[in-house]
């Protein structure tokens, strides 16, 4: 297997570990009913195209993930660049939303353009 330093999903993994894993877990498993899982999350599956906006602006209010209610505030990550958000989105979707095809750069751009 060829190893490329620029593999965006490798970059995404590193960024995920720095910016998301403390709450959602290294394996995307979440924590109890405080932090929802990303791995096999039906919420994420249904809202994958909103992921860049969730990362940028955060999300709050009650949501149901795999039938479990979560209700805490996730702060946004305005400190991340568009490219970093695209890399995290790419990694998370490839890793934990097996039902979706891996997003193309065009997809990622369109999803990010959807949020303000």
């Amino acid at each position, binding site marked *: 297997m060829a190893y490329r330093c620029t593999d965006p999903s490798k970059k995404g993994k590193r960024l995920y570990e720095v910016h998301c894993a*403390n*709450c959602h*877990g290294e394996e995307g498993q979440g*924590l*109890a*009913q*405080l*932090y929802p899982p990303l791995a096999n999350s039906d919420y994420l599956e249904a809202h994958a195209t909103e992921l860049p906006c969730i990362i940028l602006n955060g999300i709050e209010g009650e949501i149901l993930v795999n039938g479990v209610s*979560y209700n*805490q*505030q996730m*702060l946004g990550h305005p400190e991340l660049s568009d490219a970093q958000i695209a890399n995290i989105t790419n990694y998370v979707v490839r890793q934990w939303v097996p039902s979706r095809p891996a997003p193309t750069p065009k997809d990622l751009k369109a999803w990010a353009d959807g949020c303000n």
Partner: protein
Amino acid sequence: MLNWKLVIWVWIVGTIGLIGCQTEPKELPYLDIKTESRSEGGKTVYDTLVREMPIFALHNQEGELVDETIVEGKVHVVDMFFINCPTICPIMKANMLNVYAKYKDNPNVLILSHSIDPERDTIAALKDYADRLGISSERWQLLTGPMKDIFKIAEAYMVPAEQDSRAPGGFLHSGAFLLLDQNRRIRGIYDGTEEGEVEKMMRDMELLLNAA
């Protein structure tokens, strides 16, 4: 040519290292000793003192007023946190949840998590947080009270906390887990964000529980 002096040194140091690793200490150190100097008849004398653990009157997640007698005779773990902490607290809580899972049926163990954000972490908020974590106040208490009391307690436990509007979430605090014995003496300080350190703490808890 072989440098025999070096070879022998490496051998000696290596052997000591190996012995060091194999013998697990039977007794944990006391980490709450402090020395204070005073002058007596023109001479400086040093006293060795045991740091006093704080007395307190705080509310837990059930709205009960509790004081330091709740830890009497119990091996207990203390940390600082706040619900909206975006950085290290979630990891600390994930690690503490492992400690809770191991000891949730052991009446000789208690966990105390002091919130340092009394404005937002009301009793109702702490109760909701406890329910979402799935913990019982029987074994894990989330405590709140007046800000100045909380900071005084943090200082007495040597786990500094302060308000800082520039810090993520508005507070700075240490990620330490403190292990105290049945007599409220500090026997271990661990990095609560490191899974390996927390596993070490659980082994040390066994030593304290078995010594009782």
